[in-house]
């Protein structure tokens, strides 16, 4: 197959599907208790220079208790797949991100990210490679299939292609040009779910975003859950298991783990808090004050919840309409 054109973006993570297979072969298939704390998980599984991804969309099912712990433990030079709102913003604000596969970083309703621009200017973010959301989820899908690339009809004819690491080839069947995107295998994927058992079998309510594909494209998968449920409940409704235990390396019990993001049917997004971040993240000094107050000065997620306060958490829960 002839390559017509190559994107000039660097391939940040090699699509080594054979190594991925070997890795998966050696993963434990035992039903073992994988529960641990945020501190243990980050210390054990996330290392300087790792390629990580936080599965979410907007501020929904944000794995914030894990992200905050990464910042507390100051794990530097991270490479990040960026479809993010608040969680990627705070990782960037903490100066921990070096390279990014980029599709969207912004604050949705509240406009552009102020942090990303500062991090680029400061030279801390050294590489940005562009993709579309579709391209990224297809890159996960390729990894999930165990193949090194997948043909897609996104990004064609644009600078999004030019600044990506995709390739343009002639389709061997139709003769038309088509883009190839490389499998994206994450060192560590981090996903927040509604319920999991101690082995890591997970249920998600509502829409599933990138969860299915990303969980299958991660060498190490950390799951945080609002609730830990008995395995009997998983077995009672096996059709609800979106992530089976063998994909999962660690299970963290994190009630309100998505705050200030939302969990559908459980609690609403903390609009005031997100607005506050949108405001303070405009300036480096106030950004740092925020990180001190909500992350660095706190021991763990429990202290974070105490700082937010029971009353506010109850309000967010009560905002969920009764169906």
């Amino acid at each position, binding site marked *: 197959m002839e390559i017509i054109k190559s994107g000039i973006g660097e391939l940040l993570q090699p699509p080594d599907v054979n190594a991925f297979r070997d890795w998966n072969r050696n993963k434990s298939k035992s039903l073992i208790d994988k529960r641990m704390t945020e501190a243990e998980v980050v210390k054990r599984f996330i290392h300087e220079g790792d390629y990580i991804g936080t599965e*979410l*969309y*907007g*501020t*929904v099912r944000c794995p914030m208790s894990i992200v905050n712990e990464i910042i507390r433990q100051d794990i530097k030079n991270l490479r990040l797949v*960026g*479809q993010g*709102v608040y969680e990627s913003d705070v990782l960037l604000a903490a100066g921990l991100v070096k390279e990014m596969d*980029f*599709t*969207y*970083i*912004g604050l*949705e*309703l509240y406009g*552009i*990210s102020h942090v*990303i*621009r500062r991090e*680029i200017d400061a030279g801390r973010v050294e590489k940005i490679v*562009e*993709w*579309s*959301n*579709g*391209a990224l*989820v*297809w890159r996960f*899908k390729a990894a999930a299939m165990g193949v090194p690339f997948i043909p897609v*009809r*996104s*990004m*064609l*004819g*644009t*600078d*999004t292609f030019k*600044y990506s690491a995709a390739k*343009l080839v002639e*389709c061997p069947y139709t003769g*038309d*040009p*088509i*883009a190839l995107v490389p499998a994206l295998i994450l060192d560590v994927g981090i996903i927040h779910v509604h319920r999991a058992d101690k082995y890591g079998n997970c249920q998600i309510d*509502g*829409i*599933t*975003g*990138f*969860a*299915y*594909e990303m969980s299958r494209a991660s060498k190490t998968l950390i799951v945080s859950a609002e609730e830990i449920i008995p395995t009997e409940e998983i077995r009672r409704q096996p059709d609800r298991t979106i992530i089976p235990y063998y994909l999962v390396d660690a299970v963290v019990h994190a009630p309100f783990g998505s705050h200030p993001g*939302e969990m*559908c*049917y459980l609690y*609403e*997004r903390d*609009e005031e808090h997100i607005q506050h971040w949108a405001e303070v993240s405009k300036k480096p000094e106030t950004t740092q004050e925020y990180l001190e107050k909500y992350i660095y000065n706190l021991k763990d997620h429990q202290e974070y919840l105490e700082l937010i306060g029971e009353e506010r958490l109850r309000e967010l829960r009560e905002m*969920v309409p009764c169906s």
Partner: protein
Amino acid sequence: MSKPTYNPNEMLICTASRLMTDNSTAFIGTGIPMLAASLAQKMHAPNLTTIFEFGGMGAILDDLPVAVGGRRTFHKALSAAGILDVIEAAGRGFIEYGFLGGAQIDPYGNLNSTVIGDFYKPKVRLPGSGGGNDVGSHCWQTIAIMRHDKRRFIPKLDFRTTPGYLTGPGAREAAGLPPGTGPYRVVTNLALLGFHPESKRMMLLATQPGVSVEEVLNNTGFELLLADEVEENPPPNEEELRILREEVDKEKFYI
């Protein structure tokens, strides 16, 4: 009868809303498209199937979504899936309309939402493609919603994030994009625009009420084609305004 008063955002929402047809599928982004879809459902298109990027399909927009992944995007919906299912539905030709926004647009309807200035030394780093490029690549007809001025309507984009007609007739197909897809309308605070069937260049179809053709031309940074008869859009009627204010944006997020 006294004329109802309205603001430019309300006019924009009504113009976009009127483009949404009943019994069709529309890929909806955050902001104005959500309001327009909600208004359309309550006016003329009760069976408009809204499709949100992260998996919500066929939601009833009783409350306005503030995020494309929030619970309101699958409120009383027909399906709550994931991003892959949605984008692949567009890839298979199931999604008729795709609503888009951007910081810049060129005469062929290409959009920039990535960067102002140089890519490596940006003046402004914008949010990026997100699903924009996918919507512009796969949906049959895309509708861009923009504020109309010379900084936004420019001859050459700083960065082509999302494909319009690229460099002109035949360019999309030559690039490998699905035949028969492309920009359909551009809705602005000043005008409703389309694209010339042969040259694929942007064309003024109608002005917003009280806006002159000159005003539109003066706020466009490239040569704009004119339809044989440039019409004037009817202003929002009382019913549209009432529903918009009392039902669609009760919380006054946008209007």
